[in-house]
């Protein structure tokens, strides 16, 4: 019974809380710019509206165009459900961290596949950038997970995220935060608000989607953002040492801090030129590698 309750509450966390994050980011950006900005709950309204809308499909699109967003949504949600949430969901199994990484990859596969369905050059551009930058992001993520494994001597997310990331926590946080920005297509890698399709990644891929499939994509993207925020928070904070309530509070505070941080980065930075993106991502890889080295040396002492 408790297992089912635990599962349902985690599902509710991911499904219901995720759309809040883009709203918070937009509010922070508006606040910095001195505007009022859209309501924090804007994405919820958008999703509800999209879910009721009709769909225009490209004449070239196959059924994969609709299946792609569905697969991506389930994959991201599956990856999210593998992550323990403070006091909840400390089950897991050995090697679930790799399943999480590859479920995110499955989401990437189906999103880019669906993007290529329409034969649009813009969507091709977005898909090509998405899969290419992911090569470096993947290296950074594997290095980050390795450093957590070294720190804790475990290959299961529940145990890996329990203690703090130790001496390399700052390095790991910086690396994971950069990967968060890249994987979720935020500034300085991508600008979700630009009006020039030539310079976009994620938004360029979903130009032709509409109605419920678009809602699935947007909700999936929000869950992915929350996933990275939770991962970053739990990797850095010593969750294992706290009481259940303090865990929950720390988790919420951490997610809020990461979200506000993303909003601040977006407010004060401009999007980088595409040729500088690999450089920044390589920096993220190096940060995670150094975190790994610190964990390695720290544990040996």
């Amino acid at each position, binding site marked *: 019974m408790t297992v089912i309750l635990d599962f349902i509450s985690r599902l509710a966390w991911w499904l219901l809380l995720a759309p809040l994050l883009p709203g918070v980011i937009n509010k922070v950006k508006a606040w910095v710019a001195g505007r009022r900005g859209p309501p924090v709950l804007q994405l919820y309204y958008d999703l509800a509206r999209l879910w009721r809308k*009709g*769909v*225009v*499909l*490209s*004449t*070239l699109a*196959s059924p*994969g165009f*609709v*299946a792609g967003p*569905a697969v991506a*949504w*389930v994959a991201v949600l*599956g990856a999210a459900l593998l992550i323990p949430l403070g006091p909840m969901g400390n089950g897991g*199994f*050995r*090697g679930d961290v790799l*399943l999480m*990484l*590859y*479920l995110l*990859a499955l989401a*990437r*596969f189906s999103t*880019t*596949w669906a993007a*290529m*369905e*329409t*034969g*649009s*050059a*813009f*969507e*091709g551009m977005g898909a*090509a950038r998405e*899969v*290419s930058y*992911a*090569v*470096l992001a*993947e*290296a950074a993520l*594997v*290095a980050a997970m*390795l450093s957590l494994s*070294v720190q804790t001597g*475990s*290959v299961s997310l529940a145990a890996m995220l329990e203690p703090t990331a130790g001496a390399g926590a700052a390095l790991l946080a910086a690396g994971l935060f950069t990967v968060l920005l890249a994987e979720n297509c935020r500034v300085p890698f991508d600008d979700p608000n630009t009006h020039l399709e030539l310079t976009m990644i994620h938004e360029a891929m979903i*130009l*032709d989607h509409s*109605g*419920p*499939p678009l809602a*699935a994509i947007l909700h999936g993207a929000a869950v992915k953002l929350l996933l990275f925020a939770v991962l970053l928070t739990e990797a850095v904070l010593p969750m294992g040492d706290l009481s259940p309530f303090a865990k929950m509070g720390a988790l919420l505070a951490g997610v809020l801090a990461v979200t506000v941080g993303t909003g601040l980065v977006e407010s004060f930075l401009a999007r980088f030129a*595409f040729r500088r993106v690999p450089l920044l991502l390589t920096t993220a890889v190096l940060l995670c590698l150094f975190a790994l080295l610190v964990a*390695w040396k720290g*544990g*040996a002492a």
Partner: protein
Amino acid sequence: MTVGPLLLLAAAGLAAGAAAGPRHARCWPALTVAGTAAAFGAALLVLVGAAEWEWRSGFPVGGEPLHLRLDGLSALFLALLSAVGGAGAVYGGEYWSDRHYPKSAPRGRAWWCLLVLSMGWVLVSSNGLHFLLGWELFTVSAYFLITLDRARREVRAAGWLYLAASHAGTVCLFAFFASLAARTGSWELGPMREQAGLAPLFWLALLGFGVKAGVFPLHVWLPSAHANAPSHVSAILSGVAIKMGIYGIVRFSGWLPVPPAAGWVVLGLGATGALLGIAFAFAQNDFKRLLAYCSVENVGVILIGVGGALLAAAHGDAPWGRLALAGALLHVWNHGAFKSLLFFGAGSVLHATGTRQMSRLGGLWRVMPWTAGLFALGAVAVAGLPPLNGFVSEWLVYLGLFDAVTGRGPAAGAAMLAAIILGMAGALALASFVKAGAMIFLGAPRTQAAARAHESGWRMRAPMLGLAAMCVLLGLAPVFFWPAVARAVGVWHPAWVPEPAPTPLFTLGAVHLVLAVGLIATAAWLWRKTQANGLRRGLTWDCAYAAPTPHMQYSSGSFAGVVVPWFAWILQPAVSLRRPRGAFPERALRLEYVPETVLERVLAPAGGIVLRVSTAVRRLQHGRLQSYILYLLTGLAVLGAIVALEGTP
């Protein structure tokens, strides 16, 4: 029935297929499938049964008594061989039919049976001489299959390159088996780990089998042979033939002692091959070459696992080595299944459109829905994504590497690097197969040939369905296959006795099952919701551009445009550009071509130097008798001078 009669039945079926194949196109697939089914049964009996099968006879073949053996390791490969051999026979019957290829199709049927038979012989023979005989027959029959369409120049070139490279490898194997026989005093093969003096021979085996396996710098024959062979031949080449090289490496690193550096070298070769192989694959425009380079990557993944096992064995039999080796051996199977599926799919596309260039295809899903769907499934599997089989084996390899890191053994640093490279290679594999699938099947047809394509018949679709089912089954229920893999691991290292399946593997299978149900249910739900909300078809929006043409789609070259510059140091892309000129420009053209760098930038120049030196030396041989006499006299005079100067007084 026991193993021996089944193997005899298999040999009889295949021999009958080879004999009757050229004349009787109708009964050939039945004979071949019967033979491979018998072999599959024999392999299965060994894999699930308790004992290995061994058979000795005094009857000499080539002066050596017959000694056959089928243990857990060779049975694993035999099962793969028979699955792909049977599926390829069914597929090839329609793909390379008498109607389309009246001259080469009969020949192809006989060589197919001989190829399967000789590979099976290699797997069961336990005598160095017989192993070599089978190996040579296997090499030669593969050559004749690659060059079935020998009227085309590039096919002959590919065949010649394959033959030359294979024989360079075979020379190493001759040296390997001969020195083994010289040092042990017999051609008999079997476990001899205690004779430490045999360790250096491992390098010869690695070189000889590495050429066949397509290990990275030795892979030069692989892309052109796979691309130019008929597709069912490419499937067995990539799915099984290169695995024979892996079999050799695994077999003899298990039977013989290995030098201390072996694990490091194999792990390094694997990691290099995984990353660079897939980088080459991503840059290709020819989809069969893309698949071929992807095989180089997968051989790299397998070698990472094997190298990990060697390292673990060298450092006190660490348990993580078992996981890595189990992952590698399972990946042999998985790669055989999904790569054969993909080559069959590629063959269907080639059959229907007549081109291998992705920039001339597109939009084929409408006319070839079966092929498109099955290719997509194969793409998910080859990219190593859950819930299919590719992920299960990569996950085991990863788990081995992560355990090596957390164990803080001497191999931890190498395992870290290998894990990170495996992650990058996985991301690049995903990119390559999104590109391949999208360029071939999605969007609008780029040429008339693609627009006029047709779906292939059921005899080409049925083997693809079978292989796809295998990919799904291996992904959803990996625990059922664990005992077979664990047996093979136990054979490789006697101390690593077969273990029950690790609990996480069971959990992974369950999660995959839930995931698969969730994926299908959600996709169906979203589709129904979309239908219910009202569905309209319209032109691709494309930022409101009113008159899109198929040529405005993203091309294969532009899709790889971000990554290719990162690897330009090894890919060496050659670009030829014709800019639009004048007030009324007629045509502009940009061609990008990625050469086989190791072959064209390293081996070809080296070969050129050898040829030039030979040509220069050849001037001495001109047929003028007077000069020859002069050479003789000069030689005698020099010899005389040496004797006179150094001679004893």
